[in-house]
């Protein structure tokens, strides 16, 4: 079963040859952007497969031979991307089935989302797919983006939308617009995306299939899902329970309205809105629920960097060079139901011996505004050794005058590697701070722009660790 799903979905992420049905030389058309994406990635040496444009009216695009029909395609074609009007798609599916292509991305919109006629076509497509063992992503989607293999069916041209670098985060989105905006944003924020799938109307490949796949995908350390609705709840839960034992899953569920209330005749029914049910599903399956877009990526970033060393408990140690920021972080610890670590006597003693008298040895430990990198090192050293501390939040206000920026970055990166306790950093500030934050992230320390977001990301790690412990007990 496991190998089956990997084998079935592989062509979507790493095809030997892709057919772009509806490829055209008309700039800005969907079929042109997708063709250009593959062509550019081939030129850059990222996409290693063959590219076969399909269009009955053209013979050649940019030096590539154009095939007039699916039937003419070379036999190594294992992925078809469809970008032709909806009414032609069912017939094309028949050709694809005959040709023996087993993976199809249908970009085209104008199906189920438009009404009964569209739904009928979707059913027809699905019947063909099912009968011939074809897996389908879409229709009405932006499809797949894999920076490592150069698969890019996102029909937003590069000059309008940046592509993120490769990284350990998988991102799955029902909504194509959301997926595109997210990729653009991730590129700006320096967040690496290993695989993006936008499945639109998901007549076939769904969240559960992708979860099953990601279980076996070593490139992916954390999977994030933007979900509007689930069709097969049982299948979803089964797959979710499996994957969360292996790697973290973060979900952002939209549509927090209550639909159950109308039909309910019982007390319980009237309280069981869609949202409360999803809450239950996420809790039971170990999926971490993100409150919003920002939260989702704050969590993803933390897991991508620290998923391999989760906190052993919920006792947080805070180090700061600004008193106010320390208070904000402590408030956040309480707000998210975590505990402030009670430092051991050894730690307090060690800090007092090594600190100037005006620095504060406690939790938070305040290295104060005249700190240098060494004072931070002392504090971090003490916290990593203290058995009462499970996880460390280090707030660095890079603006203080004596702090050697590169040195503190080295120290944080060094301890992140050395200790088995997760460390997240908080850096509040502007342009210069942003630059240092990037440098820190490059070295494996996730950085957050506010204490609250840093602590909340840590909360995700704590909760997931708790879930794993409980699952293992059973």
């Amino acid at each position, binding site marked *: 079963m496991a190998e089956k799903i990997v084998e079935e979905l592989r062509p979507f992420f790493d095809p030997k040859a892709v057919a772009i049905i509806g490829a055209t030389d008309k700039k800005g058309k969907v079929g042109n952007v997708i063709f250009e994406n593959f062509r550019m990635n081939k030129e850059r040496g990222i996409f290693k497969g063959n590219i076969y444009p399909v269009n009955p009216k053209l013979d050649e695009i940019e030096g590539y031979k154009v095939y007039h029909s699916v039937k003419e395609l070379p036999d190594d074609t294992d992925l078809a991307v469809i970008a032709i009007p909806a009414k032609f798609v069912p017939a094309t599916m028949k050709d694809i089935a005959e040709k023996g292509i087993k993976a199809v991305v249908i970009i085209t919109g104008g199906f189920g989302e438009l009404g009964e006629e569209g739904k009928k076509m979707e059913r027809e497509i699905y019947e063909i797919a099912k009968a011939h063992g074809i897996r389908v992503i879409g229709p009405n989607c932006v499809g797949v983006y894999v920076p490592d293999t150069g698969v890019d069916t996102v029909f937003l041209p590069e000059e309008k939308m940046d592509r993120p670098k490769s990284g350990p985060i998988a991102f799955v989105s029902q909504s194509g617009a959301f997926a595109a905006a997210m990729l653009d944003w991730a590129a700006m924020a320096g967040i690496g995306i290993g695989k993006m799938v936008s499945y639109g109307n998901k007549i076939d490949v769904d969240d559960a299939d992708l979860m099953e796949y990601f279980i076996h995908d070593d490139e992916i350390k954390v999977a994030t899902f933007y979900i509007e609705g689930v069709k097969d*709840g049982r299948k979803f839960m089964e797959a979710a329970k499996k994957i969360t034992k292996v790697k973290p899953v973060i979900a952002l569920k939209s549509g927090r309205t209550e639909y159950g209330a109308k039909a309910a005749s*019982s007390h319980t029914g009237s309280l069981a809105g869609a949202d*409360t049910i999803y*809450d239950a599903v996420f809790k039971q399956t170990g999926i971490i629920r993100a409150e919003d877009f920002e939260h989702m990526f704050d969590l993803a970033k933390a897991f991508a960097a620290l998923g391999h060393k989760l906190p052993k408990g919920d006792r947080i140690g805070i180090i700061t060079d600004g008193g106010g920021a320390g208070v904000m972080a402590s408030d956040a610890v309480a707000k998210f139901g975590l505990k402030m670590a009670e430092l051991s006597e050894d730690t307090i003693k060690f800090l007092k011996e090594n600190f100037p008298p005006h620095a504060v040895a406690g939790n938070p430990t305040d290295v104060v505004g005249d700190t240098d990198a060494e004072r931070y090192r002392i504090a971090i050293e003490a916290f990593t050794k203290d058995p009462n501390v499970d996880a460390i939040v280090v707030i660095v206000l890079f603006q203080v005058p004596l702090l050697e920026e590169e040195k503190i970055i080295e120290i944080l990166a060094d301890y992140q590697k050395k200790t088995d306790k997760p460390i997240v950093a908080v850096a509040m500030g502007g342009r210069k701070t942003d630059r240092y934050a990037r440098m820190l992230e490059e070295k494996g320390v996730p950085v957050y722009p506010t204490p609250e977001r840093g602590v909340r990301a840590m909360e995700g790690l704590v909760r997931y660790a708790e879930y794993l412990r409980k699952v293992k007990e059973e």
Partner: protein
Amino acid sequence: MAKEEALKVIEDVLKSGRTALVEYEAKQVLKAYGLPVPDEKLAKTLDEALKYAEEIGYPVAMKLMSPQILHKSDAKVVMLNIKSPEELKQKWEEIHENARKYRPDAEILGVLIAPMLRPGREIIIGVTEDPQFGHAIMFGLGGIFVEVLKDVTFRIIPITERDTRKMITEIRGYPILAGARGEEPADIDAIVDMLLKVSQLVDELRDYIKEMDLNPVFVYEKGKGAVIVDARIIAKIPEEKKEEIGVEYKERCA
């Protein structure tokens, strides 16, 4: 065993043309699965009522069972703390009169004669069916906590013991169960046991159950258990039984 017993009650109700089980029937279903229901009896006649009250021991409670009267308090067909046979006779008349006033066409299945229960901390356990995920179980504190604060939590059935423990501690009102202000802690294990049994019941009878409310349930101090005071079940006819049960169902409803 439990399943067959419960199923018989539900199928009889469905065959009689109803989907809403009256309290007595719902409790028969719960009892089959070992859930804690009071030792109560359905009296069809006044003589039976007097006999059962004697057996149970005064004071007793009387609740009139009618498929047409699901909100019993509104119809004033619940009489509490009846101390003697004389009082029971008088209330027997009154309860029937109230029912007739409330719904002249009310079909009366009998009067439940029940022991007066010692009040405990009130909780609610519910079940509803979600179109995507199937049956979900709800837990919360009863009364104002559920009515006003909606302090409840859900899980998809079937649930594990870990789920139940998490449910109990994650509601905001948990301190009330844990023992706030010097109160003794409530019997958490009894709640865990009930949640697991409801989950099993619904899991096994999923094709027959649409919704369920156990409300209120009195939970006593640690080690003293709990008791389901009132219960409601809305049943449904499973696809494969539609023909068999459906015919009779339609006839009765017409």
